[in-house]
């Protein structure tokens, strides 16, 4: 009986279902794609499928982090894909897309120092986020519409920056962000870990996390209890923009080019999906940072699984949609009540 109760406590934990899904995917991969769990050290770098999944999931994890707080305040940010494109385009344009070959050896040239390019790209991304925050918090637009404006216009701006072309980057040091290794582990993983640690400390060791949840549960009540909901909402969007900017740098560095039209396409939907998979409700309120991370990993592992077991990649979208349907049904209180009621009836009949 105690065991049963413990088990039910376990399944009720916020992280149970996300982790179970991830574990299931892992077990599935371990059986069906040989070498999934295999790790090896080649020329001082750690290689293996799991490392690869972490590396590729890094942009999504970063955006999911920013999105978690936006969703916790009852908002949504669908402009992150466009901000990814803008940040990548700006960095690539400032570094410059020319290949200089001197004496048959390619030279690493950049128009401006790399630090300036990075700061500029992140600054613009932050500005994009602040723009969203202003529309939502000051003007009081619906989040989905406020961010829709930047989602539509942002792609245009990104193409304006790159002049409608795909800019290829030839500057070696820039590649380090998305492809580099530090102490054998991909550098992008460090970025995610740093942001994650900072966020967990800030939101769980100070009252900020509580404030964000309060704003999400009842903005009016939290304003009456002397919380500056407007400022919190504003900075939450600004931070989400910044996260998207960092993700944009990683993406453009990883593929060594910037494409205003296609960089970060549909990334906003993946990020929202990751947050929902992690158990944060779209209705605002309680959020789970760890859940969002697990959610992002689930999405990347799912993609990996689909590629590795030889299913045509076109099925990816269908599988993803089925997962979304299942998860949202599981999250729906009405659905759970119906299912539980029928199972309860069966028990009593027995």
């Amino acid at each position, binding site marked *: 009986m105690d065991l049963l109760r413990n088990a039910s406590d376990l399944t009720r934990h916020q992280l149970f279902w996300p982790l179970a899904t991830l574990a299931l995917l892992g077990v599935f991969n371990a059986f069906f794609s040989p070498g999934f769990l295999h790790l090896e050290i080649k020329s001082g770098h750690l290689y293996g499928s799991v490392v690869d999944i972490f590396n590729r999931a890094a942009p999504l994890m970063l955006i999911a982090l920013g999105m978690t707080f936006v969703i916790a305040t009852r908002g*949504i940010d669908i402009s992150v894909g466009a901000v990814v494109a803008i940040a990548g385009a700006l960095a690539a344009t400032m570094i410059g897309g020319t290949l200089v070959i001197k004496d048959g050896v390619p030279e690493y040239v950049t128009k401006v120092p790399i630090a300036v390019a990075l700061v500029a790209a992140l600054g613009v991304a932050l500005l994009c986020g602040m723009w969203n925050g202003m*529309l939502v918090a000051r*003007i*009081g*637009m*619906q989040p*989905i*519409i*406020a961010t*829709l*404006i*930047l*989602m*539509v*216009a*942002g*792609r*245009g*701006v990104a*193409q*304006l920056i790159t*002049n*409608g072309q795909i800019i290829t980057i030839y500057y070696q040091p820039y590649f380090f962000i998305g492809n580099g290794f530090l102490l054998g582990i991909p550098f992008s993983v460090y970025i995610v870990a740093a942001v994650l640690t900072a966020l967990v400390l800030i939101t769980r060791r100070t009252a900020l996390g509580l404030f964000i949840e309060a704003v999400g549960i009842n903005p009016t009540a939290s304003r009456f209890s002397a919380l500056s909901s407007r400022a919190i909402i504003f900075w939450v969007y600004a931070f989400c923009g910044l996260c998207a900017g960092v993700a944009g740098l990683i993406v453009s560095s990883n593929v060594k080019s910037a494409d*205003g039209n296609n960089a970060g396409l549909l990334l906003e*939907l993946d990020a*929202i*999906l990751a947050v*929902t998979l992690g158990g944060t409700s*779209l*209705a605002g309120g309680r959020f789970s940072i760890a859940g969002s991370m697990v959610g992002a990993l689930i999405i990347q592992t799912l993609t990996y699984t689909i590629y590795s077991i030889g299913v*045509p990649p*076109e*099925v*990816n*979208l*269908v*599988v*993803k*949609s*089925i997962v*979304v*349907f299942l998860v*949202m*049904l599981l999250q*729906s*209180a*009405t*659905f759970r009540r119906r299912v539980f009621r029928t199972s309860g009836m069966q028990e009593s009949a027995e």
Partner: protein
Amino acid sequence: MNRFAINLNYIPLLVTISLFVLMFGLGSVFYQGFFSPQVFLNLFIDNAFLCIVATGMTFVIISGGIDLSVGSVVALTTMVSAALLETYHWNPFPVLVLVLAMGASLGCVMGCLIHFFKLQPFIVTLAGMFLARGLCYLVSIDSISISNPLYASISQYRLPLFGDSSISVGVVIALVVLTVAIFIAHFTKFGRTVYAIGGNEQSAVLMGLPVGRTKILIYTLSGFCSALAGVVFTFYMLSGYGLHATGMELDAIAAVVIGGTLLTGGVGYVVGTLFGVLILGVIQTLITFDGTLSSWWTKIVIGLLLFAFCLMQRAFESGTGKLKAGASAAVQRRQAQVRAMATKDVSAVT
């Protein structure tokens, strides 16, 4: 007072129509050959499918929901039509019936999920979007061109109007859809219920309106409109392709917002949506006529327009709020006067 309130409701619509006239007028002044009946009719020919999709979307948005799946359903319709016609050599008529039924039932399923399990329209239609796009790629990854004689002749047929200008079959379908939609919105029980749900869903339930049935029907209608738009799109492009109509859901939402429909639901006109679509078309035509501007300016201008209209809507909302408050204060004063007079009368009698 009452007359003034009615005028206020029409203001967004009037702004939209005058903006369209202004843009068309500016084009006529600045660009040679812009002011011709055929340029005007081309706006309809090139945007007939968008008009149909946006009409369905208008109902969804008036009811306070959103439908992100429309673009993918258009793509799926072109894909299934092309595959059935070319690969399986079906007769065109059963194909038409089948794809329309498919769109409507997809919408119906999403509506049921939204109603029965109290799920958010945003996430349900997002999953629907993934599913429909994924199904496209399951049919075929490549574009399938259509050589069916009936489709080809419908595609080339032009209905001559005054002078030597003409319109396509798609335009006729779009105008019929628009007329029917205006009738449904303003002269049927269903239409009134849609407005009531958008105004306040709980009140609508308490009034005994069939909220659940109407909600499911709204999404079914939107799905049907998307499928019909897909048929028109197939006539327009004469091919089926999984990448057709990417981002059309955003264009449709933009057209509805520019057309003066409030995103909070409850307020809006189907006619406004037509002008929203025409404004999007005029922007594109202006940029084509100019020749020096690049295509991405379209996106930036649409984004700016969206921003301007949302700002106007906010100003309008707070304006009506004040007006309502003012009106109720006036009513209270009047009531107080009446009461005072009544007590005087009573005291005079006694």
